[in-house]
């Protein structure tokens, strides 16, 4: 096990409280948790790319970061418009 794998395995545990927060609470709390999960999973992708030495997988982290941005804006607009 290299240090990148160790870092990725520790990072995976941060998804446990994020999952709990995504299930519980009102829709506003869950929206913020969704943003945090997007950032954490993007960082996890970067670590896993280095851990497994599969460099093309870095594109997945970049794609996820871009898609999280679009998804976050869409969810925010939806919340403002329809969930009053």
């Amino acid at each position, binding site marked *: 096990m290299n240090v*990148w794998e160790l870092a990725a395995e520790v990072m995976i545990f*941060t998804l446990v409280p994020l999952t709990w927060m995504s299930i519980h609470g009102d829709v506003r709390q869950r929206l*913020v948790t969704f943003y945090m999960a997007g950032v954490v999973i993007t*960082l996890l992708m970067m670590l896993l790319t280095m851990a497994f030495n599969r*460099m093309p997988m870095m594109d997945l982290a970049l794609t996820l970061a871009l898609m999280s941005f679009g998804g976050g804006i869409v969810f925010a607009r939806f919340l403002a418009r329809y969930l009053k």
Partner: protein
Amino acid sequence: MKSMAIDILLAVGVLITLLSVLGMWRMRDPYQRMHYISAPAALSAACFTIAIFLQDGLKPEGFKALLTTLVLMGMNTAVTHAAARALRISETKDWNPPPGEEVPLRPEDELVQPEGKQ
């Protein structure tokens, strides 16, 4: 020396993310929770990118990681603002403060006066 720097950068990045998630868990309302997204998006991503550059040198994966970090930093500011605005609109039906709401930005600012008392 280089491997020790990589270890330290990874440890710092992971620790920042862990503390941010735990801090987010402890906060009560979504406005407080939102502040905790910025630390992993900026600091942890920067630590990991520097570690990747140290490990592999000036290779394409390092520049992809740098681009990902820049996207995360830019995304965080825009999405946090959009989310805060959306939460505000979902609570008060309007972005602007209603009359009588106490929202002074500076200590010398006056309170928003109720209608008819201007």
